[in-house]
């Protein structure tokens, strides 16, 4: 019996030698970027820690977080090839995640600070 419920589509899991050359070049470039970002983070963390940084710490902290998100972006977009997928698929993966995680971070930090204030007020 011929089944008509199987959707056929090409896997297209192949590329040529020349394309491979280009892709490898890109991989090594991203490797360099990721390594440099990590190196910067480690050097700042080792030689300019919180107690040395003082009031600049807030900026450094957010700098770390931004660098982390940049690294994550390179890993997802290049190493996981999400950048080459169809736009619909990109949105399907990224948008729900961003919405949920921002929701979670907002509520947990909001609640955390509120609980902390309550502690401060009623501890004594």
């Amino acid at each position, binding site marked *: 019996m011929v089944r008509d419920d199987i*959707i056929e589509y090409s896997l297209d899991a*192949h590329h040529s030698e020349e394309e491979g050359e280009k892709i490898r070049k890109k991989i090594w470039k991203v*490797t360099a970027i990721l390594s440099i970002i990590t190196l910067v983070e480690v050097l700042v963390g080792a030689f300019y820690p919180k107690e040395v940084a003082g009031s600049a710490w807030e900026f450094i902290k957010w700098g770390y977080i931004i660098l982390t998100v940049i690294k*994550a972006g390179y890993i997802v977009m290049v190493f996981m090839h999400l950048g080459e997928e169809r736009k619909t*698929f990109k949105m399907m993966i990224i948008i729900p995640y961003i919405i949920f995680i921002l929701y979670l971070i907002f509520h947990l930090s909001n609640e955390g600070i509120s609980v902390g204030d309550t502690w401060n007020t009623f501890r004594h």
Partner: protein
Amino acid sequence: MSSPASKQIDSATLWGGKISPLSISYGKLMMWFFLVSDALTFGGLLASLGFAKFSNPENIAAWPAGEQVFTHMPFLHGPDDVYPLLYVALMTFILIVSSVTMVLAVEAGHRMDKRGVIKWLTLTVVGGLIFLGSQVWEWSTFIAGPDGNLSTWNDNATLQHNVYGGEYEPIVDSHGHTIGTDVKSYGPTLYADFFFFITGFHGFHVFTGVLFNIIILLNVFKGTYEKRGHYEMVEKVGLYWHFIDLVWVFVFTFFYLV
């Protein structure tokens, strides 16, 4: 790029059935869905770490500074051997490199280059095992003490200079006699709970990732994918492996940097 997603297909055909509208195979799609849910788990864990820290002012004061969390190096036990961040930075670098070898294995698979896949996938497995070993050493260094339950060496210089350790609390019996000492190891217990749970949960992912990579590597050796005509399986475990690297990037930031 040769990715199927770059092909122009009019939307009537694309969404009219008989074709994947996302130009992605079932297996890869499901792997992505799984990774999104797993990423939410890790996101929830890290967000609750922040909640725990900021919900108690005592925690904010007692929480260890990121770069001070782990300052040890193997074979160096002297009192001056304090290397903030260095060991963890090496672990991070090992994981990034193993992620690169994985993406190179995927690329070799696209060219049906069996020898290339074997070479890069083997290196990925080796990188994963080195990372796991490093984490074992880190954990055992945390847990071990001169009288610790899990002793890795006798002249343990580690806990004396550990932000969590080196504080000895006398164990006093009911008559007031000191009958021994107990190492108070982990500073705020809550911090240690999060530290061991999150790095442990990540380590478990690395462990299963290495396992998957080994299984796929054996199949590559056997020629399963050569026969099948494509190396998409390498791509799928590759997605999982990159995800592990992705999580570590965040774990590294929120435990060892900020």
